[in-house]
């Protein structure tokens, strides 16, 4: 009984780490630009797909990972420069359609380059499970949880301790005021897309050995990342991480104890219930609207 629950917790944390990274990507871009980037899941897909293709072409794994992250960051930059910036001050619905158009486009590109099949990346450090109190944990899960934790710490350092990070926060807070104190908000906007894309690519690469990858793998992870970001409160970094972990755990527990067929429905039921009672998520700012 205990070992079973522990098993669900492990799998929940593993997936939760990926949802948290995806949610952080959403929050970063949302903060800098007010855009919900529906192509966030495609960053994750592109990361895993490029790593699989590079290793298949004989590139050693660490180099393949580095290249995959670089390629996807470039895609993030291009997305911002070619699609988001030209749209200017378009309304919410239009921006959603633009990023969805980008998402379909990127899936199309991946489909042409990668084919329609599913492939997996080799685990980083073997696939002999580690037994803890009767529950088994794959080494790759440790890589996923560990990578998630390291990235969260790096981001915390970046936003709390560096000038550039503070410039991003200032832009998120009030773009006009940020510009007045000399922050180049256009660079901040581009930076937020590059960072989100890199986050997505890393999440994609570390999860590829467990979840398999194909051109259409990004949609669900992306939507769940959006759920996690909303759950925590859009734009809140802590909220994104907590939201991602809660989502992963709830999903694993519901799949184990209630119904595995409805596993993918859990995040959406959860978010609707939360929003009914807390319309701005768990950690969302309680703002008063000025008229």
């Amino acid at each position: 009984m205990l070992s079973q629950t522990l098993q669900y917790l492990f799998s929940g944390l593993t997936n939760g780490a990926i949802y948290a990274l995806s949610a952080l990507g959403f929050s970063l871009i949302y903060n800098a630009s007010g855009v919900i980037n529906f192509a966030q899941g495609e960053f994750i897909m592109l990361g895993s797909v490029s790593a699989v293709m590079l290793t298949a072409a004989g590139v050693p794994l660490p180099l393949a990972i580095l290249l995959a992250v670089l390629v996807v960051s470039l895609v993030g930059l291009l997305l911002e420069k070619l699609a988001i910036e030209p749209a200017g001050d378009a309304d919410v619905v239009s921006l959603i359609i633009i990023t969805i158009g980008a998402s379909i486009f990127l899936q199309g590109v991946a489909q042409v380059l990668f084919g329609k099949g599913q492939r997996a990346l080799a685990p980083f450090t073997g696939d002999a499970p580690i037994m803890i109190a009767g529950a088994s944990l794959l080494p790759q899960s440790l890589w996923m949880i560990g990578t998630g934790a390291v990235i969260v710490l790096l981001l915390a350092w970046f936003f709390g301790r560096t000038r550039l990070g503070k410039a991003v926060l200032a832009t998120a807070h009030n773009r006009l005021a940020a510009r007045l104190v000399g922050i180049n908000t256009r660079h901040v906007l581009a930076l937020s897309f590059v960072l989100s894309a890199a986050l997505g690519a890393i999440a994609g690469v570390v999860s590829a050995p467990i979840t398999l990858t194909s051109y259409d793998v990004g949609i669900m992870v992306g939507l769940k990342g959006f759920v996690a970001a909303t759950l925590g409160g859009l734009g809140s970094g802590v909220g994104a991480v907590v939201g991602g972990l809660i989502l992963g755990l709830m999903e694993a527990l519901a799949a184990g104890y209630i119904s595995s067929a409805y596993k993918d429905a859990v995040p959406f039921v959860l978010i609707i219930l939360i929003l009914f009672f807390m319309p701005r998520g768990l950690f969302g700012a309680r703002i008063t609207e000025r008229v």
Partner: protein
Amino acid sequence: MKRFQGLALLAVIIALLPLALPNNYYYDVAIRIGMNATIVVGLNLLIGYAGQISLGHAGFFGLGAYASAILTARYGWPPLAAMLSGMAAVGVIAFVVARPILRLRGHYLAMATLGLGIIIYMVLANESAWTGGNDGINVQPFSLLGLTLTNERTWYWVTGAVLLGAITLANNIVDSPVGRALRAVHGSEIAAQVAGIDTARYKVRVFVVSAVFASAVGSMMAHYIGFITPQMSSFFHSIELVTMVVVGGMASTYGAVLGAAVLTMLPQLLTEFEGYEMIVFGLILMLTVIFLPRGLLPTIAARLRKTG
């Protein structure tokens, strides 16, 4: 008089179009355009006029389709009764969820409606004892008073009539006090409240109307195609519907019809780009919204006014 011009023009187009339709394949595309246009005219009331986004309307569409399929096949209901019951049930569901959901704004509203649509999709895909699951389910042809609708040509006229009816209804709503209230909500919800408009009540009403439109077309589509799968209610289909509103031109009823026509024909034209359909479709979507942010019809209308 002006408000009947558009309707009359569309009626003429619908009446004359068969002269230009060489075979059943073209009739089929025209019918799908008409059906999609009917949903989009309803959805445009919600998105274009009231300014409330919904990323889950394919869910209501799917519920209508499955209500028709299950009630006629399993319980032997007449198709019209099944369709009306589906519309009533969807209306009730939409009414119950509308109030808490429409309190949300912007991206939170997008999230909640997206979630609602996905939950409906998953129920349709998983309750296979009722719905046949991912394998889909056959639907018998539509029949009324002993007459059975089977061929494309009959369906064409029925769809055309339904579309004109839907537009008349939508135009009446837009020009009524309800329509003015909705536009006030779009402009500024708080200003509307200050002016004494019960904004929540109007938002709920238009949400229910648009959901019922989607359900009715879901039933029609199910009988017309004769075979349905949960894919009808997928997230991607919800997106397609919203895209038709945006590409056609928000807050423009005939723009919605144009958007439906363009986006229904696009995949048919793109079969030429075998293997590259998604790339081209994604590109067209992005470029249209970036360069014609107000949508096709309002942009064309503005051009004509400038030159003419």
